[in-house]
């Protein structure tokens, strides 16, 4: 094989290896070091360095060096003018200019390159932007670089430049995505706080049910989590709980604050609130799905006798079924103008009587499981803390909770069944 063919083959294999190296995922600095080795090895160049130009810092950061001893010790300042000149020379720099640039570079950075010879400086330019520099010393042959050598080195350098730029773009995209995520999280937090404040405002209208919407949100959250909903969905159902009674804003104050049970006319007025809530919430772009529907359907019943649409069974969205139970539980465990809060035992007896007709058995069982887990200490006391405001000795309802689970679910929780 003649020398030219062999040289060509060696260069070709270096290019192929370089492409593979740049395309492979992995540590960026290691990729650069390996690519630099390939470049040096293509012509058996004895010393050199590859530096990444950091425009913001106006400096060249060396990521790989060979045969330069300790130099350079750190990043080197590269003035904007110098960077502009190198950029204008581009990837198609001539041998003479690459040599002149090497002389200038060593002159500008005498301290960093004491007693080190650099024969060529090749700018890494992509889309007219200076990405970095490749500094090259002598070849093992001891011969001067030729135009043909420069073509080989330029081709390899272009790949390295593109590799650096691609990495930078990916980093920028990553930073922007992280920034957007932070903004999104911030907005979401503001949204949640606003909704919570709004929930408090809804409840203020009804002097008998203060704190009701926030509690319904919390109960809904606990039930949904017990049902294995994803974090995002749990957040959504919490918000739905906060806002489920927003339609009451259009109901006459005298009806809402009536000290007696509603008459037919008042009941009709009151029954407007789920649909009114849906109409208020529908035009808003919520970060969670189906919030308006949960407000609309939180008075539907499994047997189809609810309102406003008389949906039954699976026609009712799962979130609305959760809010229904949470709403009823809070209504029964707080004082109302026409009655005192019910004993917890009576609440659970009501659940038992209405599971399957008013309440979804799956939701009732999730509620019971969450309740029992808090009693036996395997879960943080959130439900209990909310109930404890009004009740003492909540542990006494353990048998009733287990009974509900036995009747409507997969059975009682063994650990708690012994209580």
């Amino acid at each position: 094989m003649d020398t030219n063919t062999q040289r060509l083959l060696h260069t070709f294999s270096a290019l192929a290896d370089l492409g593979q190296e740049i395309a492979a995922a992995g540590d960026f600095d290691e990729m650069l070091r390996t690519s630099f080795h390939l470049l040096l090895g293509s012509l058996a160049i004895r010393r050199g360095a590859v530096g990444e130009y950091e425009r913001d810092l106006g400096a060249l950061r060396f990521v790989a060096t060979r045969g330069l001893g300790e130099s350079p010790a750190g990043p080197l300042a590269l003035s904007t003018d110098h960077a502009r000149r190198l950029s204008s020379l581009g990837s198609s720099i001539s041998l003479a200019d690459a040599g002149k640039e090497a002389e200038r570079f060593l002159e500008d950075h005498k301290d960093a390159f004491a007693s080190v010879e650099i024969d060529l400086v090749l700018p890494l330019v992509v889309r007219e932007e200076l990405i970095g520099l490749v500094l090259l010393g002598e070849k093992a042959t001891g011969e001067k670089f030729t135009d043909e050598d420069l073509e080989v080195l330029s081709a390899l350098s272009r790949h390295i430049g593109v590799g650096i730029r691609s990495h930078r773009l990916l980093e920028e995209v990553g930073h922007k995505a992280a920034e957007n995520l932070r903004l999104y999280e911030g907005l979401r937090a503001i949204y949640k706080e606003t909704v919570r404040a709004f929930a408090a405002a809804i409840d203020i209208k009804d002097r008998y049910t203060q704190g009701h919407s926030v509690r319904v949100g919390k109960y809904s959250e606990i039930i949904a989590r017990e049902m294995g909903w994803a974090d995002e969905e749990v957040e959504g159902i919490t918000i739905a709980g906060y806002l489920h009674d927003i339609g009451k804003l259009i109901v006459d104050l005298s009806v809402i604050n009536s000290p007696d049970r509603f008459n037919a006319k008042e009941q009709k007025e009151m029954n407007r609130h789920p649909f009114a809530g849906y109409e208020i919430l529908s035009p808003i772009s919520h970060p969670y799905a189906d919030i308006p529907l949960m407000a609309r359907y939180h008075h539907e019943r499994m047997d189809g006798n609810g309102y406003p649409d008389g949906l039954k069974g699976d026609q009712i969205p799962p979130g609305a079924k959760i809010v229904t139970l949470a709403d009823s539980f809070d209504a029964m465990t707080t004082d109302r103008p026409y009655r005192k809060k019910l004993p917890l035992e009576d609440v659970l007896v009501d659940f038992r009587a209405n599971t399957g007709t008013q309440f979804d058995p799956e939701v009732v069982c999730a509620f019971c499981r969450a309740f029992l887990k808090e009693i036996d200490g395997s879960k943080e006391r959130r439900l209990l803390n909310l109930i404890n405001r009004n009740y003492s000795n909540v542990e006494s309802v353990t048998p009733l909770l287990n009974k509900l689970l036995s009747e409507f679910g997969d059975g009682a929780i063994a650990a708690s069944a012994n209580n």
Partner: protein
Amino acid sequence: MSDTGESSVRARCVGDAAIIYASDYLNKLSGERIERECKRQLESGHRTLIINFRDTEIVNSIGVSILVGVIDAAEKSTARLIFSDVNNHTAELFQMLGLTRHVSLVSSEDEALSLASEAQP
């Protein structure tokens, strides 16, 4: 004669010479192992390094670059570097790239050892 026991790179010492055996494909991974072993042998005082290429079919650009690094390290330690059992294709590559200006190429390990002993005072 002793076996150095370095994992992955086989090496043995004969007098002042350390013989390091290159693998079938001299690429980044195997090249770096050879480079580390060569530096270790230089640090432990050997003044002749023989790299035996009898199993080596291919040396790629990274392999060349690493060998250039070994040449540098040997020169700094004023040690002699000998490549033995290099196949024709690789020998032509080393010749073309100028490595043979810095390294003696011999056909066998015995010849390398003989050359090493001639060089000793």
